[in-house]
C-alpha cells in the first residue's frame, strides 16, 4: 500500500545518512521511536523528534537502551510501527529484549550506526564490528534480518525495506549502518508517496473467540491482533504453544523455535539482496558491504589496471546470508577477497559457504577509518596471481 503522505518529505535533499534513515523510517510509517542518545546515531532521533509531532508520532528518550528496546516491543504490540536507534554499546544492552522481540515475533526495526569497538571504543569513528552480534547477539536460536546501506540514499531506501521486511516476517530487523555512512552528507532523493511501497500491519479478521496468537495453519507467519482490541491472549518469552501459553516440553520447543528459524530460512531467496559488478568473467570476487563496498570499488579499479579480472559482490542484506550465491561463485572463481572494518567477521560466513572450493582472503581493518584502497588492491592482485 501507499504511505501516509505526512511522513514523506518528497524532494531532493542534502542529508547525512542518519537523517536519511530517520526520513526512511517516517516514510515507512514508523510512528514510535524510543531511544537513548549515543554517538554516532543521535542525529537519527534528532531528526525524528523534530518531525514527529506534525505527523502524530511519539518519540521517548528513555532512561537507557534496555528500556528503549522494551518500549519498542510494547509499542509494536499496539499495532504501531516502532524503531529504536543506537550504536555498539547500546546495541549490547538491547540484546535481551531483541531476543524477546524475536521470540514474541514482534515486527520492529533496530538501527545500529556502528562505531569502532569493543566496549565504548571509538565513539565518533567508523567500525563494522557488530555484524556478527546482529545475528548472534541474543541467546538461544533465532533468526533476524539485517541490512547494510552504503550511502545516505540507501539509508533512506533500505530503512523502508527494513520496516517492510519486519512486517512481512514479524521479526526484528537490524539496520546496520556505519558511522561513515551515518555522518556523510550526500544528495538524497525522496520520491512521491505514490512511488513508495509500504507493507502495513495486517490485523487478523478472526473473532476474539477463535483467534490464537501463534496459530499458523500451514503458513509460517501467525496473524496479528493488537493489544487493546478486545482479544484475550498471552505472549511471552517462554517457549509457548499456539495460544501463547508457556509449555515446557521438548515437542513445544521444537515447534515454537524451529518456526522462528524456518520463516526466515525458507524465505531466504526472497529476503537476500546483493548487487554484482563485473562478475561474469571474474577470477577474483570481492565480497563486502556498507561503506567498505565503495572503497572496494576503487581497489577493483586499481587491480583491473594491473590486469586482474575482478568483480564485486556487494551484500545489501547480510542476514540471512547470501549462502546460495557464494556457494555457486566458489565453484567458478579463483578466490574471494573480503574487506570489512573488523578483524574478520562476515569472512567466516564466506569461508563456510565457499566450503574450501576457493581460497577466501580476509582484509581486516580495526576501525576508526576506512581501508586504503591500495591495501585491498594488493590482496586482490595477490589472489589473482596465486590463481595463475
Amino acid at each position, binding site marked *: 500500500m501507499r504511505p501516509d503522505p505526512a511522513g514523506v518529505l518528497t524532494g531532493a535533499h*542534502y542529508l547525512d545518512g542518519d537523517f536519511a534513515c530517520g526520513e526512511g523510517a517516517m516514510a515507512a510509517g514508523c510512528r514510535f521511536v524510543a531511544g537513548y542518545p549515543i554517538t554516532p546515531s543521535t542525529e537519527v532521533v534528532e531528526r525524528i523528534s523534530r518531525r514527529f509531532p506534525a505527523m502524530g508520532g511519539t518519540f521517548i528518550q528513555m532512561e537507557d537502551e534496555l528500556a528503549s528496546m522494551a518500549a519498542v516491543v510494547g509499542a509494536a504490540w499496539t499495532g504501531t510501527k516502532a524503531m529504536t536507534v543506537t550504536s555498539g554499546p547500546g546495541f549490547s544492552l538491547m540484546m535481551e529484549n531483541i531476543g524477546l522481540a524475536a521470540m514474541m515475533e514482534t515486527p520492529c526495526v533496530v538501527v545500529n550506526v556502528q562505531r569502532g569497538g569493543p566496549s565504548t571504543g571509538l565513539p565518533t569513528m567508523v567500525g563494522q564490528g557488530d555484524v556478527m552480534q546482529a545475528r548472534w547477539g541474543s541467546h538461544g536460536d533465532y533468526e533476524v534480518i539485517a541490512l547494510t546501506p552504503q550511502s545516505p540514499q540507501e539509508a533512506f531506501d533500505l530503512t523502508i525495506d527494513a520496516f517492510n521486511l519486519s512486517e512481512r516476517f514479524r521479526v526484528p530487523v537490524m539496520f546496520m549502518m556505519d558511522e561513515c555512512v551515518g555522518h556523510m552528507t550526500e544528495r538524497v532523493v525522496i520520491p512521491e508517496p505514490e512511488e513508495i511501497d509500504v507493507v502495513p500491519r495486517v490485523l487478523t479478521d478472526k473473532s476474539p473467540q477463535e483467534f490464537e496468537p501463534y496459530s499458523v495453519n500451514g503458513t509460517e507467519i501467525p496473524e496479528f491482533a493488537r493489544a487493546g482490541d478486545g482479544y484475550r491472549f498471552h505472549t511471552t518469552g517462554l517457549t509457548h504453544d499456539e495460544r501463547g501459553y508457556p509449555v515446557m516440553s521438548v515437542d513445544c520447543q521444537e515447534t515454537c523455535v524451529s518456526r522462528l528459524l524456518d520463516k526466515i530460512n525458507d524465505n531466504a531467496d526472497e529476503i537476500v539482496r546483493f548487487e554484482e559488478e563485473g562478475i561474469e568473467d571474474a577470477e577474483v570476487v570481492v565480497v563486502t558491504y556498507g561503506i567498505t563496498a565503495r572503497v572496494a570499488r576503487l581497489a577493483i579499479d586499481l587491480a583491473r589496471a594491473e590486469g586482474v579480472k575482478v568483480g564485486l559482490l556487494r551484500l545489501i542484506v547480510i542476514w540471512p546470508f547470501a549462502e546460495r550465491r557464494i556457494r555457486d561463485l566458489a565453484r567458478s572463481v579463483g578466490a574471494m577477497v573480503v574487506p570489512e572494518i573488523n578483524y574478520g567477521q562476515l569472512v567466516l560466513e564466506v569461508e563456510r559457504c565457499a566450503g574450501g572450493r576457493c581460497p577466501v582472503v580476509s582484509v581486516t581493518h580495526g576501525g576508526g577509518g576506512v581501508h586504503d584502497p591500495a591495501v585491498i588492491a594488493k590482496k586482490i592482485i595477490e589472489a589473482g596471481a596465486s590463481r595463475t
Partner: protein
Amino acid sequence: MSEGGRVEVRVTGFGGQGVVLAGHIIGRACAIHAGKNATMIQSFGPEARGSACSATLAISDGEVLYPYIGRPDILVAMSSEGFEKYRDELKDDGILVYEQDLVHPVVKEGQRAYGAPSTRIAESLGRAIVQNIVMVGFFGATTGLVPVEALREAVEHSVPAGTEKLNLAAFDRGFEYHKNVLTQPALEVDRPPLEGAPG
C-alpha cells in the same frame, strides 16, 4: 585539479563560526542545484565552541566513492588555528580562501590566496553571525567551482526560516568583494566570465 574531475575542499574555522553550515551549503549547491555529486564529512571530535573545526567535501561530476579527502584543492580558512592545522595539506597548486583579519597566511609558490574581511562585512550588515555566508559568497566568486545561482539557492534553502534576506545579502556582499582581489575565477571552468568582471 584531481584526476577524474574530482575537487576536494576543506572548510575550517572555529566552532561556532558556522563551518559545517558553510560546507553544507557548498555541498548542497553542487549536489542539488548544479548537477554534480558532493560528499560532505564534518569533523567529529572533542571540538567545542571556539576550537578548530572543519568540514570536507569531495565534489565530482562522476560518482564519489571514497568519501574522505587527501590533499584539498581548496582550503577555506576562517580562523588562524584552523589555517595552521590544515595549511600543510593544501595542494602545492591549491587555492586558499581566507578571513583576512583573522588569518595571516604564508602560502607556497604555486598556491593562490584570496582574502576577504568577512567578519567586518558581516558586522556591517548588523550580524557577525553571517560571516560564514559572506565567506561562501567570496568562495563562490574566487573559485568559480559552482555557479553563483546554485550557491545562492543553497544558501536560501539551508539557513533558518526568516533569515533568508539577511543571509542572501551577506552572500552577495561576499561575492561582490572578489572584485577587490581578482578579475576572474581562479578555477578554469567552462562558463561565461563573472558578471561585472572586466574582459
